[in-house]
Every structure is written in C-alpha cells, then in structure tokens.
C-alpha cells in the first residue's frame, strides 16, 4: 500500500506543476495587460510603466512564473487590486459554503440513487427497472440551470415553501441555513443521481449473479439482508470512482448553482471576479480549484485502492 501511495504521489507532483504553469500561462499570455486593466484606459504610459515595474511585469515570463510559484508555495496567492483582500482570505471565507453545497448535493444524489439502483437491480428488465433507466437517461439531458429554474418555479414561485435566493450563515440560524441549501443541493443532486444509479445498478446486477449470493439465498437469508449486507459493498467499487470523477462536474455545477441561488461560495467568487475583471482573484481561484480537484482525485484513487486490493498490486 505504501509503495502504491508513493507511486501515485510521484505522479501527482508533475501534474500539479503543470497545472500551475497552465494557470499562469492562461493569465499571462492572453491579450490585455494587467497594468492597463488596473489603471483603466485613461492611464498615461508613464504610470503604466511604473505599475508594470512594481508588479514585476517587465521581467521575462519564465522569471515571473518562478517568482509567482515561489510566492504560491509560501501561501501567498496575491491580493485583489479591487477589494484589497488576499486570495487566500477570500477563498477561505467562501470554501465552507461550497463544501456544504457539494456535500449535501452528493448526499442527496446517493439517497435518491442507491435505493433506486437496488430496486432496479432486484428485478432487472422489469417494468420498474425499464421506467427508471429511461428516466435516468432523460435526466442526464437536463442541465443544472434547467432543473434550477424548474425547482425555483415550483417551490419558490408557485408553492412558496422555500426561498429562491439568499444565504444565512449556519452559526446564526442552522435551520434557515439548511433551508437555503435545499433547492441548490437538490438541483445538483438531480443531475448526479442518474449517473450513480446507472453505475450501481449494473454492478449490482453482476454481483447478484455471483455464486455466493446463491449460497446466501440457499442458506435462507432474508432478501433485504442479502441485498444490503452481501451485495451492496462489493457492488459499490465503481460507485466510489464515479463519485470521484463527478467531483469535476459537481464543481462546475456548483458555480452555476451558486450564482443562480446567490450563495456566497467559491463559484460566485469566481463569477464575480470575471464580471469585475479581478484577474488576481480569478487566477488564484482557478489554481486553488484545480489543485483541490487534483488532490480529491488522488484521494479517490487511494480510497479505491483501499476498497479493491487488485488496484494496489496491478499497475493501475
């Protein structure tokens, strides 16, 4: 196991370096000089030259990358030239909101997906299975912003059960906080459960044909015990992987959902930075999100190896 972790770690480093390089290049090579953006169109050439010098923009690009990377490694991601807040502060402030949203969304997706998958797998090919497989396929064609609109219309405009937008910190009002998260996380969960259900269903169908399931039946164990105790764990390997893969989609969905429901998370920070052309924040957030995503994938890899010994010993 240690050897496996080490091998994956060795692979992780170059990816992280390449990610930082790409983030830096996107921000540096594309048209539009940062100094002009900060000073506006009316800036005199002298002022621009002075600011470029202050910011180190007059150095060659490789030198700028090295010094930027040096700062990043020390934990200095830069400071917004609009609000004066450091990137790290801004991200730390908003990360809990995004995490809560993603966690609740993933939980919601699992709560919807797992029982449906089991119910489908028990009678695969039956009417319920065909109906749910079809529904899941249809749901995959519904983008997050569509289900968001639908949910807002249903629960906020027509029924008036839940707030359409707004955010209450958890510390102030836990119930109100959770109420704010119902629609956003349901929106994301609606996009996630079909993927989870399809994967678990097909794995479960395979598992249920194994000999040891027949053995368990022959022993006279109850169907619910067979399904939940004997069949669920061995069937959930792909589910774990897919959950990991979906984090990328989930992050994308979080951006959209946060801006629709006005939740102050990382996604809104990013969108806000784009609207105000706050390039330092934008660069910082992209780097943090990408690194976080790479690390999460690494963790999922590890988790997968813990669950399935074959991965550890093969050359995965």
């Amino acid at each position, binding site marked *: 196991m240690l050897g496996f972790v080490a091998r994956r770690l060795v692979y992780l480093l170059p990816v992280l370096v390449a990610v930082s390089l790409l983030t830096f290049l996107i921000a540096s090579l594309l048209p539009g000089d940062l100094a002009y953006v900060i000073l506006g169109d009316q800036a005199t050439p002298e002022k621009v030259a002075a600011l470029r010098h202050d910011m180190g923009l007059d150095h060659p690009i490789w030198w700028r990358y090295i010094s930027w990377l040096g700062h990043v490694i020390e934990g200095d991601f830069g400071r917004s030239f609009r609000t004066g807040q450091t990137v790290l502060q801004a991200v730390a402030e908003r990360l809990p909101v995004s995490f809560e949203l993603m966690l609740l969304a993933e939980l919601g997706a699992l709560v919807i997906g797992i029982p449906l998958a089991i119910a489908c797998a028990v009678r695969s090919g039956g009417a319920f299975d065909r109906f749910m497989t079809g529904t899941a396929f249809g749901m*995959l064609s519904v983008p997050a912003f569509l289900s968001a609109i639908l949910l807002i219309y249903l629960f906020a405009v027509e029924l008036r059960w839940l707030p359409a937008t707004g955010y209450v910190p958890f510390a102030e009002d836990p119930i109100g906080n959770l109420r704010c998260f119902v629609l956003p996380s349901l929106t994301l969960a609606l996009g996630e459960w079909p993927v989870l259900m399809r994967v678990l269903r097909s794995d479960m169908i395979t598992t249920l044909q194994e000999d040891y399931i027949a053995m368990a039946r022959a022993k006279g164990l109850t169907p619910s015990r067979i399904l939940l105790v004997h069949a669920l764990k061995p069937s959930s390997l792909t589910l774990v992987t897919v959950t990991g893969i979906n984090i990328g989609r989930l992050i994308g969905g979080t951006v959209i959902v946060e801006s629709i429901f006005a939740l102050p998370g990382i996604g809104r920070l990013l969108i806000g930075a784009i609207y105000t052309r706050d390039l330092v924040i934008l660069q910082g957030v992209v780097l943090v999100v990408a690194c976080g995503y790479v690390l999460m994938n690494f963790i999922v890899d590890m988790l997968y190896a813990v669950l399935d010994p074959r991965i550890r010993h093969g050359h995965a």
Partner: protein
Amino acid sequence: MATLELSIDEDVAVSAVARTRRLGPLFWMAIVWMIVVFAAAALADLLPLPSPTDMDMLARRAPASALHWLGTDGLGRDELARLVYGARISLTVGLCAPVIGVTIGGALGILAGYFRGRLESLIVGSMDVLLAFPPLILALAVTAYLGQSLLNLTCILGVLGVPAFMRVARAATLTLARREFVIAAQALGATHARILLRELLPNVFLPLLAFFLLGVAVTIVVEGALSFLGLGVPPPISSWGSMIGEGRESLEIAPRLAFLPAITMFLTVLSFNLVGDALKALTDPRQSAL
C-alpha cells in the same frame, strides 16, 4: 490518472439488449427533432419570421398571437424568432467545437495508440493536465481573459473536448492495432502513414462519430450554461442559454419565457444523447464479439 481513465466506460455495462431496443420509435423521433431544429436554424433567414432583435416596447411579454406565434419576451422581441436564431448559435457552437475536439483528439489518440512508448506517455500526460481543471472553470477562466465571442467560445469548448476524444480514439486503436489486418498490412511492408490512414482511421471513425454526437450534447449544455451566466455569446444575439437566463427574471410573471427555450434545449440535448447512445451501442468494440 486511473480513476479518470474509467470515465468513458461508466455506462458500458448496461446490457446490449436494452440498448438495441432503443433503436425504436424514440430513436427516430430524436432524428426527426434534430432535422427540424437543423432546418429551422439553417433556413432562419428564409422563414417568414419577425426580426429576433426588433424590440416592441408596447408589446412586452405579449401572449401568443397571429403576429407573434409564441408571444414576445421582456423587451418585446419575438420569442419564436429568438428561439430559431438561438438554435443557430447553439448548433454552431455545439457542432463546431466537437469538430475541433474530434480532429485533434482523434489524431492524437490514434497516434498514441499506434506508436505507444514515449509519445503515448507524453500525449496521455498532457491530457491529464488539461483534465486537472474542472471543464466549466477552465472555460470560464479562458473566456474571461480572451473576451466573449462566438469564435473564442467555440475554440475553448473544442479544446476542452480533446482529452475525451483522445481516449476514445486511443482505446479503439489499442485493440485494433493488435488485430490481424493491421499485422498483415505491416507484414506486407505498408508505411506507418498508410496503416494509420487506410487501416486504422476508417475503423476508429465510427466509435468517434458516436462519441461526437454525445460531445455535441455536452457542448450545447456547456454553451448554454455560459450564456446563462452572461458569459457566452455577447448580446443582442440570442442563444438558448441567454434566453433562459433572461426568462428567469420574469419567472413569476411569464414563466414560459424561461420554459420555452428550456424545453427546446432539453429536447435537442436528449436527441443527441439518444442517437449518440444508440450508435455507441452499435459500435462499441466491447460489445461486438470479434
């Protein structure tokens, strides 16, 4: 990364029977809908439609009438015309971006799968870097720096699709390169170029085509999301995503302004998914026994 490697295989295990069954009426309905949308988008200028950008402030959010078949939007613009012209944007981006992706990704994938070795490691490694960014985040960041335009949007979404197409092409090539006809061609002294173009390409083409249609569906969704956030094609050009975004403002007064483009978009994405999925089931090398 090993986990990412599995992303294209996630729904392969669904039984072949269930898939071939889909080539029924639903498949043909999807084809018909695609043709309708294509025709409307291509012939938009010839159709007897009001202008999609002419505002009529006296007829804001007007209900359906003989003049405006689907009513007007918040600025008094004809909803049907905006839907039809929006189809142009969604389909242009939705088709052109995957073309970029399938061309670059397909070529890289075939090269990686055929030559193996260092080249393969290099290609797969650089794709892993691209995949290290959540797609929507990368698209948002690059549009923010490059500026919003139809061309930029198409190029970015195209590049984002490259890794996925690379994997499909590489996976197909890896199995094909070991088949008898390739070995026979090699034994006959065929050049690498000939094997790549005459033997491998025609065989990789079909799985790529199936994946291309799924790529179109994904691209339409991402373009819609960007436009919805106001970061897609700049106004006054209508796109389904921006129409849904505008319709959201008047959800309480005129929900149809959000729902009409939403339904159109859903049906289009569903159609591409249905057809792509059916084609994938027909061409998947794992399901057709050798």
